């Protein structure tokens, strides 16, 4: 069981100590965590690993001494790249409430871009929206940014994510979307196994390690 032994004090979190991240190879993933989006979320995580990047997430650390938003800001500011999906920014449930964590985190990533004038360190982000999504009606400031559209399936999201990440200057990918999609079920199966092992949510470090193991055999 990765990252599980030695008691609470022995646990190492992403971005700290032995899990210090190279920002140029780090990609923050700002996607919904709900059950319906899970296959797409797994596809984005696995695609990032297959392109040689370390996926980062709001889930990566459980440091309760720091607020969630501070942890997110820390993760975004120590990642050169980020991927944002605005699928859940629409009315849902009986009260028709929308979730705005994703535009908030996109805003943080956009601000991160202006924290340096060095081109090689500038933050770069990918915006994903489902076909027909009327994102411009609630975040009109994004006009002109031309997000990549997909149909909600892993078959459509993987080529978009892989083509974007593979053409970043820091990519080390040699994989086609087909290779990533062919290996994705193995990653999903391993995640299910880990979930049973952990009786619930799988620690981020363990999830990334599982993706690395499978990606290394491609």
């Amino acid at each position, binding site marked *: 069981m990765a990252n599980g032994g030695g008691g609470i004090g022995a646990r190492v979190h992403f971005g700290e100590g*032995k899990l210090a991240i190279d920002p140029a190879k780090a990609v923050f993933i700002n996607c919904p965590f709900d059950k319906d989006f899970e296959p797409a979320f797994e596809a984005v995580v696995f695609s990032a690993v297959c392109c040689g990047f370390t996926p980062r997430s709001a889930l990566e650390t459980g440091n309760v001494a720091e607020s969630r938003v501070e942890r997110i800001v820390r993760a975004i500011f120590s990642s050169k790249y980020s991927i944002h999906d605005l699928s859940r920014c629409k009315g849902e449930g009986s009260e028709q409430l929308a979730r705005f964590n994703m535009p908030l985190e996109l805003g943080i990533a956009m601000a991160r871009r202006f924290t340096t004038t060095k081109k090689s360190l500038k933050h770069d982000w990918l915006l994903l929206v489902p076909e027909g999504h009327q994102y411009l009606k609630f975040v009109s400031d994004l006009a002109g940014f031309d997000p990549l559209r997909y149909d909600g399936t892993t078959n459509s999201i993987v080529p978009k994510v892989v*083509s974007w990440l*593979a*053409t970043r200057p820091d*990519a080390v*990918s040699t994989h086609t979307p087909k290779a990533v999609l062919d290996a994705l079920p193995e990653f999903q199966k391993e995640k299910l196994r880990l979930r049973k092992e952990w009786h619930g949510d799988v620690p981020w470090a363990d999830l990334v390690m599982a993706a690395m193991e499978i990606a290394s055999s491609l």
Partner: protein
Amino acid sequence: MDVFLSHSAADKKLAERLSRGLDAHGLSVWLDRRELTPGSDLRREIEEAIQKADHILLLIGHREPDEAQQLTWRVALEAVWQDPEKRFIPVLHHGADLPAFVVSGNSSREAAIPVVRIEDGRNLRDVVDTIVEIVKGEPTQKAVFKRGEDEVRVKEAERSHRLLDIRRYALSLK
């Protein structure tokens, strides 16, 4: 269209000279400065031009690619994945490395990647000749023509090291 020419803003003069050289051999070349008009939809025009091109010439310098060049790389990579007949021709200058995505765009084929190197930017004649030979499917030994396998090995090694690093981090938590 024979060739779509992708380049960074920093390489625009070199791209224009290459384009003129290819024109002189009767090849039809898409070059942004000649084809794009002010106010046009950059992404759509690039997508359409890449769809029509048989070969995508990637002029790559040692500097990090600018945003427009990264856009053409992404669109070109997706086009190559969809159309196995479409080919990348990387043209490297100033000691530039072959980007990893070129390998990805070629991984389903047995053929080596035809990497062209510009050794002396003042004289592009051999480079143009080599590109013309590749486009016409008649590569010869006379110009700077290198099998892509060496480049692939380098990138594979970098990737393996990266995977090992992250695995070590994860294993250290056990």
